[in-house]
């Protein structure tokens, strides 16, 4: 049997509904975090409300990881019942070790085709669980903890804490007994392989003080945290996968933060409640997914026209229509950029990793408030529902704040809500401000907010609404440093937006190890475009690889429309739900370096 000794390890833990494999995965990740590892966990689940199939997909490493590896090195299954439903998302390496229950039958076709029978380990997982009165997931957890050489006492503390917080103390003793059984099963394997069988060599650090603090956080919680750190006060939302857990997490916290969360009757109501609260002066947001964003487009246009700040978080899922609600794709870029009718300039941003969800959300709210317009933040299911071990995330430096007009009572001139100003931003009077009475309007209007259908008013207000965003190109570098993240050198560059950045960053590092020097640019601010800034980042680049997770190349077409690009542009795109992996990007990089033709559209494999 092959042992797996790697710097980073990818594990898939699967079972049919109720086997608790997702919990086992989370507890393993938590134990690894307390031990000093970095890592991540995503879930492969079906659309069923309860039960059905589920798999926890984990990656653990001694260094920060943002995305899954190409292959899984270990697959542990309690049963194969529903495995075929997500087999396509679990790519197995040739040396994969399969641990399965002895009575689960033979591995199904997609697994049998890859795995070497000598690497299949049949163990009495269910029988051992039964002996202890616990469940198979706890036996699996003990086994995996031992194979990974995670400290036994840390694992026990994590498990105890898990049941303690759920108020299920009666499960603690049987669970600990089951961990013991799993660890005992691991013993002979470990002995036969000199103590290291499935492991990342060495300890990540001597102790946690040495490691520095770790956080365990999902992208959805990170977005919510960024909103709160920046001063967010009002949330309205309508339940939709995969954004609901963000709303649920915020619900009990909003009031304790001097804020409010409302469950709206639909997404139309949610965005309009946000606009109403923001008109009242409170920094406000809603969180939704593609189908909800489609409905909110009407409200986005109103926010643009009436110049009301609002943050709309779209945790993208596979579309169009209802699509695949539980799985990830970067398919809403065009909708976010171009959705509203008329000329409707607004902000579009995308966080590029779980850590960045905190900061880019705070920046998006800051910009929306400062520029008095809506901002769409494009997260996705992968980022949103990924649970990641990160370094402690420093608080976001951006706060919500508007240019206000507090009192007009002394002024002889009537208050002009939409005054034409040099930077396009007009001081906003909130209800309550004496003497500044006015009616904000979704109709085109003059400076005083009175409806107008005149040529001059429309031209002046269009220009003003455009200008306040266009001015970002002139903002000082230190205020705009967050617009993109770039590293590396060379004449080849990989460019991404949103969650594809993780695979690209890792690919560029792997390429450097091969002596292939490349750059990576991750764009966080997608609208307004930053032509000069991107030109500087791509200065000297001759070949550009555009990586994105969708079928049509929405990012590619956006770049071509709004930027001057290097002569050779390669599109590397593939739809979800399988995440883009570092090796896919690395292959594209190698090919881009070798190829002769000026343009090639490449579909990822």
């Amino acid at each position, binding site marked *: 049997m092959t042992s797996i000794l790697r710097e980073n390890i990818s594990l898939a833990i699967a079972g049919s509904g109720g086997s608790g494999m997702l919990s086992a995965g989370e507890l393993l990740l938590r134990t690894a975090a307390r031990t000093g590892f970095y890592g991540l966990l995503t879930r492969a689940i079906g659309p069923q409300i309860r039960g059905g199939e589920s798999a926890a997909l984990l990656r653990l490493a001694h260094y920060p990881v943002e995305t899954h590896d190409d292959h899984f090195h270990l697959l542990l299954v309690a049963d194969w019942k529903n495995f075929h439903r997500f087999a396509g998302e679990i790519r197995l390496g040739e040396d994969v070790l399969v641990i399965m229950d002895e009575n689960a039958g033979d591995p199904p076709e997609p697994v049998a085709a890859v795995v070497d029978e000598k690497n299949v380990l049949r163990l009495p997982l269910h029988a051992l669980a039964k002996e202890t009165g616990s469940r198979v997931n706890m036996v699996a957890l003990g086994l995996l903890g031992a194979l990974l050489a995670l400290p036994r006492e840390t694992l026990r503390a994590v498990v105890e804490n898990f049941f303690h917080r759920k108020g299920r103390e009666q499960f603690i003793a049987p669970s600990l007994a089951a961990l013991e059984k799993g660890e005992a099963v691991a013993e002979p394997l470990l002995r036969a392989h000199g103590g290291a069988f499935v492991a990342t060599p060495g300890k990540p650090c001597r102790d946690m003080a040495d490691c520095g603090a770790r956080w365990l956080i999902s992208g959805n919680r990170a977005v919510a945290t960024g909103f709160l750190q920046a001063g967010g006060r009002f949330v309205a939302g309508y339940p939709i996968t995969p954004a609901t857990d963000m709303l649920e997490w915020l619900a009990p916290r909003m009031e*304790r933060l001097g804020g409010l969360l409302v469950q709206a009757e639909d997404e*139309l109501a949610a965005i309009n*409640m946000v606009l*109403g609260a923001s*008109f009242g002066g*409170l920094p406000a947001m809603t969180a939704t997914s593609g189908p909800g964003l489609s409905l909110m487009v009407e409200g986005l246009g109103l926010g643009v026209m009436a110049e009301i700040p609002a943050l709309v978080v779209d945790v993208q899922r596979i579309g169009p229509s209802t699509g695949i609600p539980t799985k990830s794709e970067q398919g809403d870029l065009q909708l976010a950029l171009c959705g509203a009718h008329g000329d409707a300039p607004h902000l579009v941003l995308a966080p590029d990793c779980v850590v960045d969800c905190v900061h880019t959300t705070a920046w998006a709210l800051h910009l929306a408030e400062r520029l008095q317009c809506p901002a769409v933040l494009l997260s996705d299911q992968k980022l949103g529902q990924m649970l990641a071990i990160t370094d402690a995330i420093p608080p976001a430096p951006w706060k919500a704040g508007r240019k206000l007009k507090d009192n007009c009572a002394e002024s002889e001139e009537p208050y002009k809500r939409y005054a034409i100003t040099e930077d396009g931003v007009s001081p906003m009077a909130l209800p309550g401000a004496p003497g500044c*009475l006015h009616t904000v309007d*979704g*109709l085109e209007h003059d400076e005083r907010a009175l409806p107008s259908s005149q040529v001059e008013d429309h031209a002046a207000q269009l220009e003003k609404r455009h200008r306040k965003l266009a001015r970002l190109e002139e903002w000082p570098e230190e205020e705009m440093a967050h617009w993109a993240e770039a590293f590396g050198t060379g004449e080849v560059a990989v460019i991404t937006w949103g969650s594809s950045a993780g695979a690209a960053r890792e690919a560029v590092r792997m390429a450097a190890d091969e002596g292939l020097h490349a750059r990576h640019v991750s764009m966080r601010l997608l609208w307004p475009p930053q032509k000069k800034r991107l030109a500087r980042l791509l200065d000297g680049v001759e070949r550009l690889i555009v990586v994105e997770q969708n079928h049509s190349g929405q990012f590619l077409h956006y770049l071509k429309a709004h930027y001057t690009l290097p002569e050779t542009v390669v599109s590397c795109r593939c739809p979800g739900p399988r995440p883009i992996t570092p090796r896919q990007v690395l292959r594209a990089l190698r090919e881009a370096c070798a190829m002769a033709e000026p343009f090639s559209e490449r579909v990822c494999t």
Partner: protein
Amino acid sequence: MNRPEHAPRPADYKSGVHPVWCPGCGDYGVLAAMTRAFAHLELPRERVAVVSGIGCSGRIPAYVAAYGFHGLHGRALPVATGLKLARPDLTVLAAGGDGDIYSIGAAHFVHACRRNPDITLIVMDNRVYGMTKGQPSPTSEPDFAAALQPEGTGVPPVDGLLLALASRASFVARGFSGQPNELAEIIVAGIEHPGFAVIEVLSPCPTFRPEQREWKRQVQAGLLQPANTLEEAMARVLTAPALSTGIVWREKRAPAPMMPRPDNAKELAAMRARELAGIERSFHP
């Protein structure tokens, strides 16, 4: 309504902006009644917000000297709800027409009734889409013939009061724009009601429904009286003539929870800092 001299007058609540409404439009009467109600309550103008959607009636915020929000077709209620929940210090009114509130905004109407935000809604009902020039609305009679439906709709109209009651609105009334004094009294009662007040106003459209000019002779003022039970209220709405006015239902029910208001900015900042620190700790593995 006798008042001391220093008290505000209805004219103080008029913005001076010239309405787009046709001569004889019922909405002038609604504007008059609203400003009378504001003056009677002596509301500080900067603490009043009027929110509307789209339609002839949706133009009303700009004609009132207050803060206003002229938003999207059908969406006045969610905007008003967000505003009131975020700013409990304001007196918030929502205004719209029968198409705005009972058709494109019908879902919001039902859920606003349930949620019970402390808002007063004024539905100006003229049984026609006036702004788009005369199409049948959800309250049009089944045989009202128009270019878009030459045979009439052939379907029963929405009964706004019944829908409000079925959706558990806590205050339900009907007024008539041709009797602005009675209407002003109903609006005062609606504003004073701690919850969602639905006030449907018969507001004739002399341009596309000239026969509604007769309403002033047909309306039976004060025929609707507060009922003791919901059942009774529904029965009264069902049996009373369609052109009768009055308050038919009032019930004490907790309004939708609003933004907590800490005494001062310092207290709020301390509260937020504490909670944010707790959130950070919750991310420790």
